[in-house]
């Protein structure tokens, strides 16, 4: 009898202790949110759009040179002839300056970053575009969310195709390999489609974005409204040599935006409430990106090794073309001895160094970055009209901008190539350091020519690259070729 009792106890013990609470094995992450919860309503879907804006200024891929979009901006000028490196410093951007990095398939700063960064925008946009129609919430919100996603996708493809594809030439078929075309969320490998197909998609996305953005009033300049989307469209048209669309879109885009005053012009390009800022981001202190920052390399006054020993200078030949009396002439010091120019403690002074970009607080590497300015729209309009042979509107657009910078400027008397050249010089001066030069050289089929200026050959190494050379195409990252098992193919080595 006793034996039986003991077995009952044993059985009882095991059965009682054997059961845990049903949800014992249910755990949820605390630093992420499940995909399933994101697109249930527009309120939450907005958070993805905000995240994409923030992606414009985030630390990328553990590489100090990459602070979001500013990584692309610095690279585009490092590859050009208007920005001059004055010292090896700690090596950042020197490999790029030498035209080395973007031709190394394993390079992280130039090749991997530019590819993955823009495809990450595309992938996030694809999730929004695929899911937003089924989210609960006002149609106006759905439109604004979808439109911004479409605009980002168009913009991202445009940024990337200019690097990885051959130059778009409207006189040709443009059937060379472009990029993988991803417009829905999916896994698996996608081959590259032609440059033309990518441009077609870009235009389709931007057109749809523009049509959906009509009524959208944005909370701040980091959002894409109809002006910004039209600005994108103008840039794209310029790259496609579609002068009429470029001029029309640029003119529409700048509506409602003024040009900044001379006082604003010398205040450091670090405030996105600048009247010229059509699109940009504000970087607040607790969202700093440390050395992953535009101003950690391009500013005149941040106390980083890179700036102390490699203050960025302007090409001396370009500087010589700035008229006396032009406010922009004061942004660079041709002597390298002007002590009125701010430098970090124990920083070097070099001839032609800049004070265009300044950090507002020298203890922090950050400042706001403008990604699209009114003046660019005037320049697009002027250039497109001039190239289309529309001399008068070209001169007028140029005049509005140039007069703002230089009170003594009078309407240009140039025509033809001379007018185009004048506009291009204005463009190079106005947009110096803002990430346009490589794109411009490539879209215009111009050679790189750094000779005869203040470039130190020891640092620059490469100072002539013929137009149309294969080096105008970035290599596709090796890891993309590996992860697609070669479905994505490499550019000519």
């Amino acid at each position, binding site marked *: 009898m006793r034996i039986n009792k003991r077995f009952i106890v044993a059985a009882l013990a095991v059965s009682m202790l054997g059961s845990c609470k049903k949800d014992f094995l249910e755990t949820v992450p605390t*630093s992420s949110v499940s995909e399933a919860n994101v697109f249930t309503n527009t309120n939450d879907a907005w958070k993805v759009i905000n995240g994409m*804006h923030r992606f414009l200024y985030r630390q990328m891929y553990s590489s100090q040179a990459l602070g979001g979009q500013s990584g692309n901006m610095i690279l585009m000028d490092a590859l050009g002839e208007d920005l001059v490196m004055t010292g090896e410093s700690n090596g950042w951007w020197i490999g790029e300056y030498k035209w080395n990095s973007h031709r190394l398939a394993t390079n992280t700063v130039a090749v991997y970053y530019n590819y993955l960064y823009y495809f990450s925008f595309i*992938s996030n946009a694809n999730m929004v575009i695929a899911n937003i129609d089924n989210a609960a919430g006002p149609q106006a919100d759905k439109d604004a969310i979808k439109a911004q996603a479409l605009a980002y996708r168009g913009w991202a493809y445009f940024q990337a195709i200019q690097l990885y594809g051959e130059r778009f030439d409207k006189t040709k078929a443009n059937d060379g390999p472009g990029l993988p075309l991803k417009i829905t969320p999916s896994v698996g490998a996608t081959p590259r489609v032609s440059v033309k197909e990518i441009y077609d998609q870009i235009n389709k996305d931007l057109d749809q974005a523009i049509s959906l953005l009509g009524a959208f009033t944005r909370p701040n300049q980091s959002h894409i409204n109809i002006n910004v989307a039209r600005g994108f469209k103008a840039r794209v048209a310029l790259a496609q040599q579609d002068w009429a669309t470029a001029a029309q879109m640029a003119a529409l885009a700048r509506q409602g935006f003024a040009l900044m005053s001379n006082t604003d012009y010398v205040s450091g390009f670090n405030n996105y409430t600048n009247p010229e800022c059509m699109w940009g*981001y504000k970087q607040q202190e607790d969202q700093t990106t440390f050395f992953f920052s535009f101003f950690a390399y391009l500013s005149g006054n941040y106390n980083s090794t890179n700036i102390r020993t490699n203050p960025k200078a302007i090409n001396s030949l370009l500087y010589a073309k700035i008229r006396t009396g032009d406010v922009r002439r004061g942004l660079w010091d041709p002597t390298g001895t002007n002590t009125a120019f701010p430098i970090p403690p124990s920083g070097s002074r070099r001839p032609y160094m800049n004070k265009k970009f300044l950090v507002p607080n020298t*203890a922090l590497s950050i400042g706001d970055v403008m990604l699209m300015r009114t003046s660019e729209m005037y320049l697009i309009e002027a250039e497109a009209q001039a190239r289309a042979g529309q001399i008068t509107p070209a001169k007028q657009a140029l005049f509005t901008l140039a007069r703002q910078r230089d009170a003594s400027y009078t309407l240009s008397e140039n025509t033809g190539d001379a007018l185009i050249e004048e506009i291009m010089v204005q463009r190079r001066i106005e947009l110096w350091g803002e990430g346009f030069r490589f794109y411009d050289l490539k879209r215009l089929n111009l050679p790189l020519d750094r000779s005869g200026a203040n470039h130190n050959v020891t640092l620059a190494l490469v100072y002539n690259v013929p137009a149309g050379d294969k080096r105008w195409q970035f290599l596709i990252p090796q890891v993309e070729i*590996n992860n697609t098992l070669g479905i994505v193919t490499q550019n000519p080595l």
Partner: protein
Amino acid sequence: MRKLLFTLTAFLLFAGPLLAQRVVSGKVTDDKGKPLAGVSVMIKGTLIGTVTNADGNYTITVPANGRTLVFSSTEMTEKESSLDAASKITLTSKNSSLDEVVVVAYGTARRASLTSSIPRITADDIKNRPLVNVVNALVGSAPGIQTTTGSGAPGSSPGIRLRGFGSYNLSSSPLIVVDGVPYDGGLANINPEDMESISTLKDASSTSLYGSRAANGVISITTKKGKSGRNNLSFKVVQGVTSRAIPEYEKVNAFEYYPIMWESYRNSLRYNATNAVPLADANRLASGLLPRNAAGLQVFNGNAYGDVYQTLGNYNPFAGVASNAIVGEDGKLNPAATSLLWGDDLNWFDAFYRNGSRGDYGLTYQGGNEKSDYFGSFNYTNEKGFVKRSDLQRFSGRVAINTNPTKWFKTGLNISGAMINTNQIDNEGSINDPFYFARGVGPIYPVYVHNPTTGAFVLDAQGNKVYDIGNVPGFGSRPFNQGRHAIYENELNQFNYKRNNLSARTYGDIIFTDYLKFTANASVDVQEYYEAGYDNAIVGDGAPAGRARRNFTRTVSNTLNQLLNFNKKFGDHNVTALAGHESYSYTYNYLYGFKIEQGFADGNTEFPNFSTISSLNSYTNRERIESYLSRVGYDYKGKYIVTGSLRRDGNSKFAKDVRWDNFWSVGAAWRLDKETFLTNSSWINELKVRGSYGKVGNSEGLGMSPYMGLYALGFNNGPAFGILQSALPNNELTWETAKNWDAGVDFSLFKNRISGTVEYFNRVTDGMIFNVGQPLSNGGSTGGNFVVVQNIGSMYNRGIEATVTGRVFSRKDFNWNVTVNATTFKNQITKMPDTQKEIIDGTKKLSEGRSIYDYWLRDYYGVDPTDGASLYRYNTFSTANCRILTNKDGGLDTVTTLISNAKYIYADRNSIPDVYGSIQNSFRYKNFEMSFMFTYQLGGWLYDNGYAGLMHAGTPGANLHKDALQRWQNPGDVTNVPRMQSSTTADLGAGTSTKWFLSATHLSLNNINIAYNLPKSFLSAINASAARFYISGENVALFAKRKGTMVNQNFSGTNSNAYPPARVISAGINVNF
């Protein structure tokens, strides 16, 4: 918890009626009549037992059905006796390993009854080795245990792998079990002095009861308990010195460096792809002989050029030589350059080395009576690394108490705490790592600023030397990490962490019939980690503002289990059984803050002294496992043994439908020596064959909710809340499973003069988890492109391990034992993801038929004697960069000079040794003991990153290996070192390729120690029972292929500029009272 209490109460009520039938008492002695304390006395076939007291006496109450008593202890051979003959028992010293009692999953067992091998290290084995980390005791201790050397940084642990590599993306480290419960604290928390034994569980039979966590084997540590009848107090003092165990690479000096850098710069002008400068002009430009512009640059063809002096940042270390006359246009160093201006200030290592030391002080006491026992210890370790700002202090204490107040109830508590306080150098491998910096900086750059003319130190206003950060205004601009100075930064920065660890184990045993026992275990391990970091405002990453970070984490693991043990003999049939339930809960809290802009520069690195919050983050990770477990064992006359186990685990890491799985094993053994045809053998003392097969799992190393598609929080745009895609989903994800089988023979021959084990094992990992890298065109997050975690591959590790111990001499005054062990295994991937048949991972490529450590590298061909170009086998033919050469057999080889067009190949080499193992020798002569152990590796290949980094093609400012003196210089030079040319270092020099292979074969004198036991006559004078002096060396010597190479830094064979291992020479004394 309430359930547990209820159950305990229930047991108390029902267990009461167990009344004894007969009281037996007696005395246990050794063969010389000396009383033996602490001998276990058990009633055979039951779980009832007691232990002998200090005089060897015991008393036990035997129930009516009790017939036989079993006497056992760790040192003595087990003996059985009838009740009538039990008053006087003599035990003989154990000379057979089969009588050992070893730790198994959820219990202990006699080695004889096992169907697996369980190598074990006891406290006695390491008593003369002053270890700070118990893991070091495992190095070389048994076959199948592979370890890395480990860093020399105080507090670091070597890596461990058992029987190959079980996983690729998840952890391949064994499960650590302390006193029966999986342990999440670091092993550095455990005072080695507290360790009673470390057992290594490698095969299916021994590991499978740990189920889903045992795929990589188990290291099971048992801490000391009190021994009844023996009150004992002992203390130890160990004092040692530490120093760098592996020397630095051989590098060029200043006189050799300048001409090489001249040549490198000259060649970059001369061989430039566009606008090449003619040789004579390039020579003059490099020397600095052409006219200069206002900026001090030479002007040639309208463009500005620097010279070698400027290229090297305006550093001229030579006395009496003008800066444009250091190297002539013939490329030779100016003959007048015979003395250095700062020759005594070029060794950057000396600038941060110091005399390392290690002190270890401990006190332990233990004792008990028939009812209760206790153990207590306190230990203090103070280690100063051989480099500045690298130290560790550890305080640890432990109390263990066991008591059995009634016959049927036993309980105990084992609590230990450790407090660690350590300073660490900055991130290994980064710019502010002093080892990286000191190795890499060119041999002309001084640590401190010097007057460029006189060479005298430049002093600041207080008269102190000034560190040369490479861009001090008015002085040179060092191109190597300009503006940085790892040694200065190391001095100013702070990286300190404190770790508190509390471990508690308690249990209750209820013996409620003589063959049935219930045990409840509860444990908690709490670890708190507090990290304080500060980057200074003067130099480095923290400049100009200064910044501080604080990181606090708290890990709490709870394990509760309830076990029912059955043990009964039916005639010649022995049956054991176990059934139980376990729940495990793990919680990890993380809190991180980061502020910048320091207020007062007064050394205050706390947050109020900084003005701007730049990061504030927290999260909580949880993991839960619930398990049901069971085991059965059966043997017939101890001759034929079979075992089986089954465990069912559920894990919170996986999606609901795939959350549960079964893990199991079966095993069998046959004691041939008990068969009649062998019992009379003159030379076979023991012979056992055994085998087991089973399934275990692995999920260690998977992140939180790895199956979910996720959006990361924290992408706020200003105040607007933002999220972004961070992970793609996979609801199918589940454990990796290992199917292990092994067969072995244990033997002891010639009166136990030779004993050993030979085993074959085959571990098959199925459902191997791959982080399948997605196309970049599918997006990614700030860390990189997306990966999807998938159970997709298969792999095996199969091999043979053997250990043989020989008692070479065994005399009264002298004995000498030798143990040699060896392991050879093959690791091979048998299935890869269908969409990703190949994964390139750094220097390796995974594919079917290859190991996880097979190198995949550009195929280096050699150096072209005509122009010194590095040549690689080509990938795509291009006239621009390919050459067709005649090889020595007269055939044609197509090669390329462009590294990005080089062909990748499997070089049929991997980092896995052909054979590894150890040779251990121990001697005893009268009162002296000596032992030493060599570990060895035969075969296997290293990828010598450290060397490759010093064999670049002339990057200005970076140091070079001596081998750079063999560089190509003139057409016709036949060499393996290419042309120096600073502009194309990747193509020419340090690009990743097969060039940097190095044989990993090596022999290491891992430890040596000599001990002297003080004679009894002396001891009685100080009232001590034993005392021992010893001298010990760890990491004593390394014999390897290349001076400076870290041969055993990691399992993948790819070394880095890490903190080299430390050699520790120490002396100690142990006294027992």
